């Protein structure tokens, strides 16, 4: 009878194992897209809250693919919002000004909310632009 040491074991690195969670995420995204279409409700998934393996991430990245839009946001560090091959599904990576990843999300929305400026910000910008134009007119 073989001893326990003789029983062959295949050691798989954690990063090489598919855990099945990536497939669950894809299914959840499909559900969120339906919710967006039927009721206009946006959704998001926090990827850092899930115990995805390296292989899971690679698989998910491949499944989502790339779309037509990539947005760079410089606000307290660089953020990148990339539309996937499925319009309305965005990969969002937020970094701080030390280039540390502070959040990694999948957002399901027509346009991620962080991109739309607040009404208050637009009003301030409008007033600032009027002052700028007035100054130019006065200078001329």
């Amino acid at each position, binding site marked *: 009878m073989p001893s326990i040491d003789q029983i062959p*074991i295949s*050691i*798989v*690195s*954690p990063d090489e*194992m598919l855990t099945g969670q990536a497939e669950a995420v894809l299914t959840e995204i499909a559900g969120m897209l339906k919710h967006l279409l039927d009721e206009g409700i*946006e*959704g*998001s*998934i*926090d990827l*850092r*809250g899930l*115990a995805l393996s390296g292989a899971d991430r690679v698989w998910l990245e491949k499944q989502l693919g790339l779309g037509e839009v990539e947005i760079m*946001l410089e*606000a*307290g*560090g660089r*953020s990148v919002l990339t539309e996937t091959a499925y319009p309305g599904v965005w990969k969002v990576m*937020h970094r*701080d*000004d*030390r280039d*540390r*990843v*502070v*959040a990694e*999300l999948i*957002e399901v929305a027509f346009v991620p*909310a*962080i991109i739309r*400026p*607040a009404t208050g*910000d637009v009003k301030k910008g409008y007033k600032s632009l009027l002052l700028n134009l007035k100054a130019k007119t006065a200078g001329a």
Partner: protein
Amino acid sequence: MERSDTLQEKMEQNGMSRRTFIKYCASLASLMALPPSAAYAMAEALGKAKRPSVIWLPFQECTGCTESITRSHSPSIEGMIFDMISLDYQETLMAAAGHQAEEALHAAMKENYGKYVLIIDGSVATGLDGAYSCIAGRSNLESLKEAAKGAAAIIALGSCASFGGIPKANPNPTGAVAVSDIIKDKPIVNIPGCPPIPVVITGVLAQFLTFGTLPELDKLGRPKAVFGETIHDRCYRRPFYDQGKFAKTFDDEGARQGWCLFELGCKGPVTYNACATTKWNDSTSFPIESGHGCIGCSEPDFWDAGGFYKALSMPADPLKMAATAAVAGAAVGVAISFANRAKKGAAKSAHETTKLEDLEK
């Protein structure tokens, strides 16, 4: 800077845009295991919130918790805490000293009575009526009872404040106890760790400001979002544990291959904390990733838990086992000899004298 300013106004004065604030809230929501959508709700609520008064009292501590939280020099998640709050008293950081500092403390407590958040780091010495740890001629015990009366909530920061920590280690010469052993009539959040992960305190404060409530706590008063899972549950070396691959020494082939450190004393399976995911030093690493087992620093009495290098599967205290056996009816002497048989046998064959100290290791 007026404390009546809202956080939004404070942000704008510091040149922080709304989008930066939303990013910050997204990271906090992620940390506190809130739904990602909570980030926008948090941004809106925090933006309108007035800066709360925070009073920080250090007791029997090493200042490691303050060091942990203040090791950030740029606008970062940890650094934001000082923008979000009005830190009215903190001995290590404030410029004032002596009587001026004490006057500032009492003025802040009076002005914000019933509304301030009280942060305590360090254990509370109770021996000799608290004489072992005094500040400005008053025992920490007395100061805690006074400050707690007007606090809206208390955050016990670090393992010392949460559970007694290292000062409480056997034989506990100062009679060190946790904050929750003294204060029974205020909501207390324990954020243990030696030191605690810095961003946790920011998350707790943000949740308090946004929702007016403290986060959901476990049976030891710790935020479940951070302390809901063991290190073992999220450890990247877990697959090796499951496959039965353990490092036997710190420099063997298993250690070099990054195998599980269970046999080298890792306390990950019984330690609840977020080190495996949030990590340390700007998310660089955590003890296991650096090759050393978890020492369980966010658990009560971790210092007396039987040794950092003894595997969890080994009995921590054979004499305690003997006492248990005696209660069950077995002879104390026989129980001890069972626990020490291997050691005595090895010593005999090596021609060494076994001393009582050897058996107690």
